């Protein structure tokens, strides 16, 4: 709001200055229509702004003056001297008030009634009030033409380049410390200046957002919807020009959100949402980009409708649609000619579609991304560069040449040397598989005729149609460059986005990622299908963790088995009771280790679980998550190795978790509680408890609050309390008393264990509804 007020003050002041000549001329010739019109326009503008800015005093004055002037224009009143004087007094007064607002000073409003009554037809010429001498606040701001700023900016760019050249020449020739020092100072000044000049072009994004409340209000009122607009981050600064360029796309997206996204209050209530829709517009800076996010809680995009529209309007064939994934289908909203609405409304249906929105945003080097939550809303994120003229790039080399590539289009840089990358020749085309993801390869050297050597580095370039790998010799550097358009026939090649003059003094071309894909003849739709098939395969594949084992070998284990990977102190590991055990979190877990732990102080362990029992596997180091290939060579020997698989061209042993768990007396992750209804002898605690605990039960003699036993044990002659669990009775004699006797001899360990297990299982079956408390949900992916 403050910005708007400042703007109003600056504008009024400017108009007043321009108007002063008109006023004098009007005084001399009150019938001059042109002068009258100029003054009328002025008071009219002031009146309009006042209503918006809520300045009632100015509004009253300008309204009164406007009425009188309108009457004059309609020839209802004659502009006599008294009228002219009264109007001019009001114009002066407006000026004074504006100055007072700017200076933050109070201004007495006593004489304003007089001024207004002086306008009346029968007013006696009132003494024109003595002007209060107002102190004009010395202005600290200047209104500038954007063209001037642009010239300043381009001059600045030239200055940077000139400095670079000077530095280069000096480096080549003389080495005078004085000259070097002077150059150093110049460089600093220039860099500083460049920052400042860049900032002059910056404007708070509030300039863009301040118009939104009104727009949302009007639009929602027109459509009979209730929308609550939340604006965040309006103090983020952005290049002025960009603000202008995203104004229309943003307005369009917001109108869309209100029109198509947010439902009518009745529909919202029916869908169980609050009647008032919520629209959040936020801006934030992320690196050298500004992210503008528009999210609503409306109905989202109906992808099926979009798809059928695309089919109806013959934008895509059935087969093409069949090959699309959800994202690709969603992207159809950006298709030219596709309108998701059946009836055109006055609000959104203005012939500007999302295709234009996207084109406009991409034109300024931005991106637009959709996040659709059908039934729950839509989030649109617009990425725009901070400034138009300085671009963050990486420099690549091909043969003897260097090229720049905009960083925003680069997804990843990978060296070909590693085992992660495989280059295949498919027909006469090349493709790469980077960590199992296949994409087309464009060797820049071959495309540009700069030799046919194999690329040493791949730059994964992300374009609107799809991703591809650009093969270059090397990635040299990252640089912020002042990029200018190249001459038309350089641009006509379609592979360049501009030219620049870096510090090296040799001109350099900025590559256009999407253009190269086009010139190289990449057709992404076909490849997208292949990619989908690959994706389908990968879903079938099992994710696994590749790790270095303690014996130095590289092994792999299915990820789902791993609950988590954590480092433990080796002091917690000891060889007790015939096996390695790990004390962790107050529990003892069997530990499998293929090598010696040695003198490490800490070792990483994989906490493995099969759902209800746990064990640990000591490893040297976790490497990465890989996908298991479908083929495996089975192992010859026993042991917890299932076989050998090929990962990244290497033979890797695959751990057999089945064997691991089968071979260990495992401890249940969550043990069933066995309630011992002990008599005073303490036999149960002393004799029975260790045996039962070894079999995976947790024995208690008294239930903790809220604890339910899975099973209870009682002596035939001991006290028996009623508990919500099956009770197994133990007898002291080896022989039972008959067929009706279901008790178990207290030293018949196998029978006791079996009976306990049977009763627990029967109990668990009965409780299936609440999924037997001791079965823990398998957590997968916990190792990440």
């Amino acid at each position, binding site marked *: 709001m403050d910005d708007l007020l400042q703007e109003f003050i600056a504008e009024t002041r400017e108009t007043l200055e321009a108007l002063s000549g008109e006023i004098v001329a009007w005084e001399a010739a009150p019938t001059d229509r042109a002068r009258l019109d100029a003054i009328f326009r002025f008071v009219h503008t002031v009146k309009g702004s006042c209503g918006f800015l809520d300045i009632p005093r100015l509004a009253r004055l300008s309204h009164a003056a406007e009425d009188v002037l309108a009457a004059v224009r309609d020839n209802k009143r004659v502009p006599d001297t008294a009228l002219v004087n009264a109007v001019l007094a009001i114009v002066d007064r407006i000026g004074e008030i504006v100055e007072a607002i700017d200076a933050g000073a109070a201004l007495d409003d006593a004489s304003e009634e007089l001024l207004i009554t002086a306008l009346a037809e029968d007013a006696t010429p009132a003494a024109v009030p003595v002007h209060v001498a107002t102190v004009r606040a010395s202005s600290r701001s200047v209104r500038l033409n954007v063209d001037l700023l642009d010239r300043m900016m381009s001059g600045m760019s030239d200055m940077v*380049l000139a400095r670079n050249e000077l530095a280069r020449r000096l480096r080549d020739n003389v080495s005078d410390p004085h000259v070097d020092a002077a150059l150093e100072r110049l460089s600093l000044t220039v860099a500083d200046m460049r920052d400042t000049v860049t900032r002059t072009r910056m404007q708070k994004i509030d300039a863009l957002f301040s118009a939104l409340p009104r727009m949302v209000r009007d639009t929602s009122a027109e459509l009979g919807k209730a929308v609550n607009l939340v604006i965040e981050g309006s103090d983020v600064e952005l290049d002025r020009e960009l603000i202008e360029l995203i104004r229309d796309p943003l307005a369009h997206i917001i109108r869309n959100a209100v029109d198509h996204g947010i439902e009518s209050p009745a529909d919202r209530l029916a869908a169980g949402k609050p009647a008032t829709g919520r629209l959040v517009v936020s801006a934030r800076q992320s690196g050298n980009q500004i992210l503008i996010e528009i999210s609503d809680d409306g109905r989202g995009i109906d992808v099926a409708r979009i798809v059928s529209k695309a089919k109806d309007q013959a934008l895509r064939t059935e087969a093409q649609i069949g090959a699309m994934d959800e994202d690709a289908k969603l992207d159809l909203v950006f298709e030219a000619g596709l309108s998701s609405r059946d009836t055109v409304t006055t609000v959104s249906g203005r012939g500007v579609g999302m295709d234009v929105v996207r084109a406009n945003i991409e034109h300024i080097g931005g991106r637009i991304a959709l996040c659709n939550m059908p039934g729950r809303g839509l989030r649109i994120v617009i990425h725009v560069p901070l400034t138009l003229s300085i671009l963050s790039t990486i420099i690549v080399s091909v043969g003897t040449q260097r090229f720049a590539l905009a960083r925003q289009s680069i997804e990843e840089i990978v060296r070909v040397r590693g085992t992660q990358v495989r280059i295949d020749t498919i027909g006469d085309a090349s493709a790469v598989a980077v960590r199992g993801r296949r994409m087309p390869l464009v060797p820049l050297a071959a495309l540009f*005729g*700069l030799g046919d050597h194999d690329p040493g580095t791949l730059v994964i370039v992300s374009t609107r149609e799809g991703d591809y790998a650009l093969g270059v010799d090397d990635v040299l550097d990252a640089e912020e460059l002042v990029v200018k358009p190249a001459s038309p*026939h*350089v641009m006509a*090649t379609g592979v360049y986005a501009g030219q620049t*003059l870096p510090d090296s003094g040799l*001109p*350099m071309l900025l590559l256009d990622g999407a253009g190269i894909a086009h010139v190289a003849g990449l057709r992404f739709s076909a490849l997208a299908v292949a990619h989908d098939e690959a994706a389908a395969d990968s879903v079938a594949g099992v994710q696994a963790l590749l790790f270095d084992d303690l014996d130095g070998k590289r092994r792999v284990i299915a990820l789902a088995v791993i609950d988590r990977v954590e480092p433990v102190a080796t002091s917690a590991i000891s060889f007790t009771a015939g096996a390695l055990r790990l004390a962790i979190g107050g529990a003892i877990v069997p530990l499998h280790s293929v090598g010696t732990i040695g003198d490490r102080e800490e070792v990483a362990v994989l906490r493995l679980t099969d759902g209800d029992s746990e064990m640990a596997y000591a490893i040297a180091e976790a490497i990465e998550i890989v996908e298991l290939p479908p083929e495996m060579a089975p192992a010859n020997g026993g042991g917890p190795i299932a076989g050998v698989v090929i990962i990244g061209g290497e033979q890797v042993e695959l751990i057999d978790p089945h064997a691991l768990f089968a071979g260990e007396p495992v401890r249940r992750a969550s043990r069933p509680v066995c309630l011992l209804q002990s008599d005073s002898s303490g036999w149960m605690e002393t004799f029975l408890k260790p045996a039962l605990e070894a079999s995976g039960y947790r024995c208690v003699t008294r239930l903790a609050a809220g604890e339910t036993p899975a099973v209870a044990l009682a002596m035939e002659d001991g006290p028996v309390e009623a508990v919500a669990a099956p009770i197994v009775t133990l007898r002291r004699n080896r022989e039972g008393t008959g067929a009706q006797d279901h008790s178990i001899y207290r030293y018949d360990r196998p029978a006791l264990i079996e009976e306990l297990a049977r009763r627990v299982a029967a109990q668990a079956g009965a409780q299936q509804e609440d999924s037997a408390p001791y079965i823990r949900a398998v957590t997968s992916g916990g190792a990440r």
Partner: protein
Amino acid sequence: MELFLIAHIAGRGVAIPAEQVGSVVDIGDVVAVPQAEAAIRGLTALRSRVVTVIDTGTALGLAPTPETARRAVITQVDGHDYAILVDSLEDVAPFERLPLSSGLALNHGWAAAASGLVDRDGEPMLVLDLTAVVPSSLPALVA
């Protein structure tokens, strides 16, 4: 009378209207522009500007200007700077611009680039329109 810069291109003397000549320089290293048409020799830095170097011979449909050619006339077309490579330069002198003689059959790019004649001591020379030498202004490339 009009001022012309007398130059030699592809072994022939031509008169370049002085108003089209920004400056006359010896260009430095040229960076090739892969994928660009043959008439684009590349880019070079001229002070702090990047200029597009035109292989004048190729642009006129004649034998390519040798790689060693360094002397160039700088001209500006549609806001972009171009270096038009020449064999050699003579001097600037005023001449009367004459219309192309009727029946003069010009081939190659000469037809598009020649906009008149001057008479230097009895020797006729074509007036070369630099804007027509720059390939982007040839009709084929306007689209």
